[in-house]
């Protein structure tokens, strides 16, 4: 068997798949010949399989730096589900004793997920330096770039950490990156010239792109109700606020009779699991969610993604709409936007960054900074930078740049929703792609033209609302089912 045959054989035996998804094979092949790799692959292409395959195939330890707490725990459980027991997540959810226990037994684990802020902890650094890392994975690698919309200060030190670990083979993965962000990723991680970049287009031809201008929230609600009634389910509706997500979710259920649930970080891990499973099992028609939803969820037949609030940047927009139509069937992505959306997004974006005045106060009185950090995100950010040894003056510069970047990203989104030509080409241009598409009737909405749902979804009919959900079985029946017993 040659190496490629061996890879297919191993894929079938270990993961139960007969074929790799686009990009996976190239990434793994590059890693197997020892090339560090940057993989820019759209959501849903199975980026995590790349490093899971490599770790299992070569039987080496994989260290994954992952910035999203909820995603991390989900990936740990997914790996366990696939039979991998030697997996652990080191993050702020671990209590002191638990962390100590994990660090003492680190060599026992094959897949170690690490939150970036943990790299500030000397015990953690010492422990990971003491074991052989076969592959270092930087998940959501675009966070390393100050040019990107999701810049994470803890990612700044990754280059240094990488050299402390003797420059292990590295895989940086992300769903989207402009050329400028990619350049930043390569230089910040000190990746050599040998590094391979595997990049696939962000374009998803089966997702029709549209936006709907609205006057106010009531108008938005009406449009949303109308779309949900006319579009084939299942669908996803994204919100920028948890409160709004619950409120509109309830309204949608009342007005349409569809089975709707909300999903956001305010729910416990188990509740999120419940909603995900119900959705995957076809027990829900619509999920109203914040950006917390979607990571690790692989539902093939999501027909629409509606953004109730205009997102803050095209990067997250493209990632979120990428959850639709993974079965390659016709799907649609709609942004509902009103004039006030951009102000909301500006407010949200700027709230997370301290102003010059605030920085001055924090510098003068560390006690105020300490107290403020318990309550607000921006003061917490200052504490993090202080811990990383960044001076206040430098911070001021960084935050000024971040503010500009965020405002620029929001402006790009505004330009996108009001773009009078092909929206798909707008996105491709933004991500520095060289191939543009020829606009067609299933491509996107031009200007303010009506969205012709009926002709787009000729083959797929909208759902008739289910009858009101009945009270399920008695508690005795639940127990009988759980424990496989009969009384």
């Amino acid at each position: 068997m040659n190496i490629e045959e061996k890879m297919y054989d191993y894929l079938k035996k270990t993961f139960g798949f007969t074929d790799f998804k686009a990009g996976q094979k190239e990434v793994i092949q590059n890693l197997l010949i020892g090339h560090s790799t940057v993989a820019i692959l759209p959501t849903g292409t199975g980026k995590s399989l790349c490093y899971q395959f490599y770790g299992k195939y070569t039987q080496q330890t994989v260290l994954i730096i992952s910035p999203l707490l909820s995603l991390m725990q989900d990936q740990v459980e997914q790996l366990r589900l696939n039979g991998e027991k030697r997996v652990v997540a080191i993050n702020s959810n671990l209590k002191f004793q638990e962390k100590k226990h994990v660090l003492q037994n680190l060599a026992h684990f094959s897949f170690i997920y690490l939150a970036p802020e943990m790299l500030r902890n000397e015990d953690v650094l010492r422990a990971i330096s003491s074991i052989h890392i076969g592959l270092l994975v930087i998940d959501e690698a675009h966070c390393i770039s100050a040019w990107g919309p999701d810049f994470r200060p803890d990612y700044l030190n990754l280059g240094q950490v990488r050299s402390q670990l003797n420059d292990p083979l590295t895989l940086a993965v992300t769903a989207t990156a402009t050329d400028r962000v990619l350049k930043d990723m390569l230089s910040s991680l000190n990746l050599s010239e040998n590094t391979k970049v595997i990049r696939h287009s962000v374009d998803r031809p089966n997702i029709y792109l549209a936006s709907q201008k609205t006057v106010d929230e009531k108008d938005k609600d009406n449009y949303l109700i109308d779309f949900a009634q006319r579009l084939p389910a299942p669908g996803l509706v994204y919100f920028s606020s948890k409160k709004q997500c619950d409120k509109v979710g309830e309204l949608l259920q009342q007005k349409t009779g569809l089975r709707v649930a909300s999903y956001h970080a305010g729910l416990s891990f188990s509740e999120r699991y419940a909603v995900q499973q119900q959705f995957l099992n076809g027990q829900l028609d619509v999920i109203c969610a914040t950006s917390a939803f979607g990571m690790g969820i692989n539902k093939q037949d999501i027909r629409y993604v509606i953004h109730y609030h205009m997102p803050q940047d095209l990067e997250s927009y493209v990632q979120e709409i990428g959850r639709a139509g993974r079965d390659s069937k016709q799907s649609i992505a709609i942004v509902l936007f009103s004039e006030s959306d951009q102000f909301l997004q500006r407010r949200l974006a700027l709230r997370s960054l301290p102003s010059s005045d605030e920085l001055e106060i924090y510098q003068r009185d560390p006690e105020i900074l300490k107290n403020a950090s318990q309550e607000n995100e921006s003061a917490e950010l200052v504490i993090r930078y202080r811990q990383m040894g960044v001076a206040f003056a430098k911070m001021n510069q960084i935050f000024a740049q971040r503010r500009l970047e965020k405002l620029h990203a929001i402006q790009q989104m505004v330009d996108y929703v009001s773009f009078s030509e092909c929206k798909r080409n707008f996105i491709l241009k933004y991500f520095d792609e060289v191939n543009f598409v020829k606009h067609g009737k299933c491509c996107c909405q031009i200007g303010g033209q009506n969205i012709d749902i009926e002709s787009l979804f000729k083959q797929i009919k909208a759902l008739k609302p289910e009858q009101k959900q009945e009270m399920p079985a008695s508690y005795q029946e639940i127990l009988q089912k759980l424990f496989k017993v009969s009384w």
Partner: protein
Amino acid sequence: MTEIKAENWLLFFSAEQARRPAVIRQILTKRLSNSALFWGMRYQILDYINVYPQLDTQYYDYQIDFLCQQKKLKRNKDGLVSLTQLGIANKNKLKENRQLACPQLFSIYRVSDLVWMIRLLIQVASEASWENKRYYVAVDNFECQMVVKRWLKKYGMHALQDSLLHDLTEFLGNEDQLDAWIFCAQFIGHNTIPLTVQQISTLTGLTLTEIEVVSLDLTSRFALHIVESRSTLTSIIQHFRSQNSLYEKSNAALALVKQGNKIIDIAQQKRLKESTIREHILNAAIFNIDFPFFLFLNAEEENRLLQLLPDDIDKWQYKMVESEQEELSFFKYRLFAIKRSRETLEY
């Protein structure tokens, strides 16, 4: 627990006794100074210690102000708060809702962790019952995962399945059918997808808070049932006993006093201030129904305090006896207030 609606705080107020909202907050979140404990005893809410550890202080204060604006509560010039007629009517309505049957369990066990522990046990036992070894563990609490692993190593999977099913059926057999269903509908297991609190609320017509109260109530009492029935699962429950250092320190100080030690000697021995030891003893007087008050207060002192202070203990202020502070220290004054409260309040 999800956010408590302002209305629910009415349950902790009275029309006859003006109360300090801060005391109620301190009791619910287990921020226990002796003053909070004393007033908690006066308000008869000590059973509610630690029932709501994650309570957002600022939001709670805002909610109390909101209830005052709605004229369900009224605030007097000293900042004390009592129920209005409207508040009484609303409180009576709230009393018909589901309540915690044993709130005192919240100061003994870490109930919110027990919720996850029990759900994890159910999932593990359920998957094993269906002979499935590969599943997505839907409880992300590392501590719970370690506890169950350790237990399984000692007792094995069959023991978990047998004990859990036995204990659950025995316990739920005595519960209200709907409550038992609410409790079980949130269990995750083999091919069993749980319902969310919101969905249960929609199906039953109960409020979100009521659903959460039922879950916490049944969890805490199921834990107690496991311990009292000496189930093999007891060690799992005991792992989640709260560290109650305040209670332990207070009883340790009391034990030393009972052995004849003086406060000054205990302070030296423990390398603590005398005032700290006095506070521990005052706490012990609140915690222990058979506290030996005679060791600190003689009949003459008690009589003198009775003469100087009004009948209503809630109106007592130390400045009323300050003229005799050489003989009647704050310690004696507070101790006497605790003793009189014990004699006059119903327990």
